[in-house]
């Protein structure tokens, strides 16, 4: 179970988010929130791989792509299949988990930099594959006219509000599941693995299955995110899942604090707000003043500055987990003293 402070934070956030659509009538802003929620799900999943098990994965967007395309292929005119949204959430999560294992297996012997490079490669291969498998995926055009979600006769359509509630529920369930796993035999095994793989193996931890479990579980959350993404946009295309998505999600973890669930929530919320709200709004305002500036083009420059400042002044992230904070501080003292 979550410790009391985390519990209160979660409860507060859930309540605030439950009543929010009643206060905000602007559908555009709700759309921003749904997108932020999708990225939060991605961050929660990546945190299992990078934050808990310490496996640096730079190709996480691949699983988001797999989740999105799974729903797109199964619920559109592409193959004439029109499978319903709700069971497809589970199916996509399972398929993404399966690919987590398939793409994780070749990397088991790799650590640190080497692991990062190989996962980076997978992150590029997957969208490229979707681009080239034209007969299944529609190639560069992607798949359009994807079914939107529905509950009985009520079709969600282009209204973001029901998706908003779906995302909030998925996030809450994901956080509960993640806290549970963290405080379990498997969670301890991941942390042991992160700290000392040799010692972990000598405790009877099968490092292969522990790593694959991290890859699988981490990927499954992006399967959920992918389904919501595809149903909301009613469109998927390969260029949605480029390297910048992987980096954005990783930046959310670094900003918030790797391994810290509160940190992941805050970090992803802040970057999403910047991404989907602040920068577009700033652009609109600039244009009102006659400035032809598109701030969204400077997104990665701004990320860069944020990350540099975080690394300099708060390397453990905004809201770190106690353990990670100590690790990062200790390694910094070590580097400084050598």
């Amino acid at each position, binding site marked *: *179970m979550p410790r009391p402070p985390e519990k209160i934070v979660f409860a507060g956030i859930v309540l605030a988010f439950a009543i929010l659509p009643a206060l905000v009538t602007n559908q555009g802003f709700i759309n921003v929130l749904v997108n932020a929620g999708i990225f939060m799900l991605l961050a929660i999943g990546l945190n299992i791989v990078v934050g808990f098990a310490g496996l640096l994965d730079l190709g996480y967007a691949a699983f988001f792509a797999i989740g999105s395309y799974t729903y797109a292929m199964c619920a559109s005119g592409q193959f004439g299949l029109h499978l319903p949204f709700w069971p497809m959430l589970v199916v996509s999560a399972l398929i993404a988990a399966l690919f987590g294992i398939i793409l994780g297996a070749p990397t088991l012997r790799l650590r640190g930099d080497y692991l990062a490079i190989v996962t980076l490669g997978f992150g590029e291969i997957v969208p490229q594959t979707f681009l080239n498998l034209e007969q299944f995926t529609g190639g560069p055009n992607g798949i359009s006219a994807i079914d939107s979600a529905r509950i009985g006769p009520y079709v969600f359509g282009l209204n973001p509000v029901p998706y908003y509630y779906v995302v909030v529920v998925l996030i809450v369930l994901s956080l509960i*599941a993640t806290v*549970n*796993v963290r*405080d*379990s*035999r*498997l*969670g*301890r*095994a991941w*942390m*042991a693995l992160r*700290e*000392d793989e*040799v*010692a*972990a*193996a*000598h*405790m*009877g*931890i*099968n*490092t292969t299955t522990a790593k694959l*479990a991290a890859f699988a*579980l981490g990927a499954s959350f992006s399967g959920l995110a992918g389904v919501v993404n595809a149903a909301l946009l009613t469109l998927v295309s390969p260029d949605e899942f480029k390297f910048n998505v992987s980096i954005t999600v990783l930046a959310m973890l670094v900003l918030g604090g790797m391994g810290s669930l509160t940190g992941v929530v805050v970090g992803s919320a802040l970057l999403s707000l910047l991404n989907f709200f602040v920068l577009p709004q700033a652009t609109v305002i600039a244009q009102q003043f006659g400035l032809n500036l598109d701030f969204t083009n400077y997104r990665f420059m701004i990320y860069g500055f944020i990350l540099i400042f975080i690394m300099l002044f708060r390397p453990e992230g905004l809201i770190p987990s106690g*353990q*990670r904070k*100590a*690790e990062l501080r*200790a390694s910094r003292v070590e580097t400084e003293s050598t």
Partner: protein
Amino acid sequence: MSAFFELCGVTKAFGGLVAVNDCSLTIDAGGIVSMIGPNGAGKSTIFNLITGLYRPSSGEIRFEDVPIGGLRPDQVARRGVARTFQNIRLFAFMSALDNVMTGAHAHMGATLLDSLLHTPRQRAEERRVRDQARELLQFVGLEKSAADDARNLPYGSQRRLEIARALASDPKLLLLDEPAAGMNPSEKAELLALVRRVRERGVTVFLIEHDMALVMEISERITVLDHGEKIAEGRPAEVRADPRVIEAYLGAPA
């Protein structure tokens, strides 16, 4: 009758360097046995061979009549062989309690699904393992440090925590790699008592140690290694009197 544990002609070569050469030894259940030898004699290599960190180049390692040579470390651990490390390898940023609970990993059964849902079975198991871990911390005298990060413990306590973590897997054979290294005389005396109490729990202890006084006092049998080969074996008094052992430690008489 077959042996509890035996090495049969085990050789380990790293490229051209033969670290362990045709080494055989037998350990009976329930005792405390030691392995000594000058630095670089191959003692730690033997431990690494037993626990599966290295694969033997040739020869066989048998534990309770089952060959374990070439198994992975986690498989060896599951069969009931636990160890500590020469240079302490605790999970430095985990609490002492979590370190010990991690040691119990092998005999826990919670699956991924149990962990995700915190099923009643999983909770009961967590409680059981936590209680057992607290008991083990008390056993090694660290009950007050349960919540402290392993890295913040004093050196001697870290050594004892490593023993508690190893015991958490409920081993039949415990390998201690220089447990007294760097300890002061009073810490050594405590360690000696601790190792004896470990044996009383029914765990066979096999240790590598440099401290001769400690080894001679605690061991029932001693194996002496030099340049990767066994040069002597026997009770402490026999080993102490063996001319080859004296030569290995002090050099040949001029």
